[in-house]
């Protein structure tokens, strides 16, 4: 059967071949991503439920495993209501503007050594640029709805995302100074050695700030003033229903996974195994065991899961920040700390402090 597929494939012109391969790769990234998003909502409800001493959804399917499917089906069959006085074109286009960047950023994520859709050298810059575009979806949604709550939510989230982008950008500058590269694969390779070689240790303040800014960037609790259901109903997506709302939802959760993934790549060594440097090389070369204990996709997934769990944990624990306190935290705490730590990293790199920055 495979020869048959292969014969058709080789008969195609070269350009079409490349195209087909890229599309197949995109599908291989997107399908699991969407599945993860669906089950992240389930995990969120379960974990928050458990932390509130409840048991969460458990009626749809065994232990509630089919709950996200039921939610998706429900949302698909609901009507998309477009308010009479809204700007219809912008109203329709803003969910797409929101989810587009959230998905596009995955193109440069290296899942394992060489397992990356677009291995570009400006990977970090691309990520920073693309995730910033996501804010337009939110702003345009708030504007197009022609509703006070939506506009307020959009204003809040715009100001918040722009403020935290700066602290986040500085944290990324620290990473690229430490790694000496913008290519995400090279950043991970620069961390290889052992758990202590990962950048979380020399860049600890930047790591904490990056993750907290990431939580703020995705408008998650405790920085969810953009949604603030107790004050402005649901913020920028008040007027959205059905699948249009679901797309915003998808974008938010895809962004959560993206931020967790980036934290894992930039500070926790991505696909690198934490057992590296502890176990002798002989163990790593054992067929199956070495595959499990050695570097690979599964370690990246595990690290992503840990960060996601922390995001859910935050939501179950912290009350919402007051708006002016969010701004204070972003501008007067995070940005100064990152700038100071950039100096420290600069000195460290120049002084070639081992084990992170020695010339090989």
């Amino acid at each position, binding site marked *: 059967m495979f020869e048959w597929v292969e014969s058709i494939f080789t008969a195609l012109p070269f350009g079409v071949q490349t195209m087909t391969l890229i599309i197949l790769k995109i599908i291989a990234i997107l399908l699991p991503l969407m599945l993860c998003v669906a089950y992240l909502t389930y995990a969120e409800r379960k*974990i928050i439920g*458990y*932390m*509130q*001493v*409840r*048991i969460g959804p458990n009626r749809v399917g065994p232990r509630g495993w089919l709950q996200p499917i039921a939610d998706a089906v429900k949302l698909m069959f609901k009507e998309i209501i477009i308010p009479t006085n809204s700007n219809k074109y912008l109203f329709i286009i803003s969910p797409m503007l929101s989810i587009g960047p959230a998905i596009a950023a995955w193109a440069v994520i290296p899942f394992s050594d060489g397992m990356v859709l677009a291995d570009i050298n400006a990977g970090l810059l691309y990520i920073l640029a693309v995730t910033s575009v996501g804010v337009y979806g939110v702003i345009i949604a708030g504007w197009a709805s022609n509703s006070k709550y939506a506009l307020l939510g959009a204003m809040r989230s715009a100001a918040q995302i722009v403020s935290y982008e700066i602290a986040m950008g500085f944290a990324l500058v620290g990473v690229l100074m430490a790694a000496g590269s913008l290519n995400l694969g090279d950043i991970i390779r620069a961390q290889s050695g052992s758990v202590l070689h990962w950048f979380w240790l020399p860049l600890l303040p930047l790591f*904490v700030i990056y993750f907290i800014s990431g939580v703020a960037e995705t408008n998650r609790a405790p920085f969810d003033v953009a949604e603030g259901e107790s004050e402005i109903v649901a913020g920028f997506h008040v007027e959205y229903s059905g699948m249009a709302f679901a797309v915003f939802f998808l974008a938010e959760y895809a962004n959560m996974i993206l931020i967790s993934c980036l934290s894992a790549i930039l500070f926790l060594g991505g696909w690198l195994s934490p057992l590296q440097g502890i176990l002798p090389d002989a163990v790593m070369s054992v067929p199956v065991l070495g595959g499990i204990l050695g570097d690979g996709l599964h370690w990246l997934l595990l690290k992503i899961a840990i960060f996601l769990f922390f995001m859910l*944990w*935050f939501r*179950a*624990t*912290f009350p919402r920040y007051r708006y002016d306190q969010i701004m204070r935290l972003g501008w007067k705490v995070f940005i100064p700390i990152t700038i100071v730590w950039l100096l420290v990293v600069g000195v460290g790199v120049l002084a070639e402090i081992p084990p992170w920055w020695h010339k090989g």
Partner: protein
Amino acid sequence: MTKLIRYLKSLFLLELIQGLRLTGRHLFTRKVTLQYPEDKTPLSNRFRGLHALRRYANGEERCIACKLCEAVCPALAITIESEQRADGTRRTTRYDIDLTKCIFCGYCEESCPVDSIVETHIFEYHGEQRGDLYMTKEKLLAVGDKYEKQIAAARKQEAAYR
């Protein structure tokens, strides 16, 4: 000094970590959720659910149409009409409780001198069309006849405190 300590505490997120520890502990505690249709909470003898009109053991209805319940009802949910029967006693010809008005305060039950109008333990009932939740005398007596055993048992256990 205290200012410095407070500053360091917030810088190192100590209080946030304390909060995280608390919720983290609760992740593993036993869950208190009751799976409702399968499990039910125990009901007090004084539980105030659906109303019922009771009868004496000989089949005579208890209500003497004193209209105390109608007077005390804060939601004006009770309507009573009465007349003299052939044997000279006064009985109701109409005893209606509009459950859509009723607030289940239990005052009717408290005010009743003959323990006729009572509130039962039934709380899982519904109406399928308009008027289904308007309880007439016949419906109330039917509820009373059906659940007399339960009603009497609850009253007996509470007798010492009344």
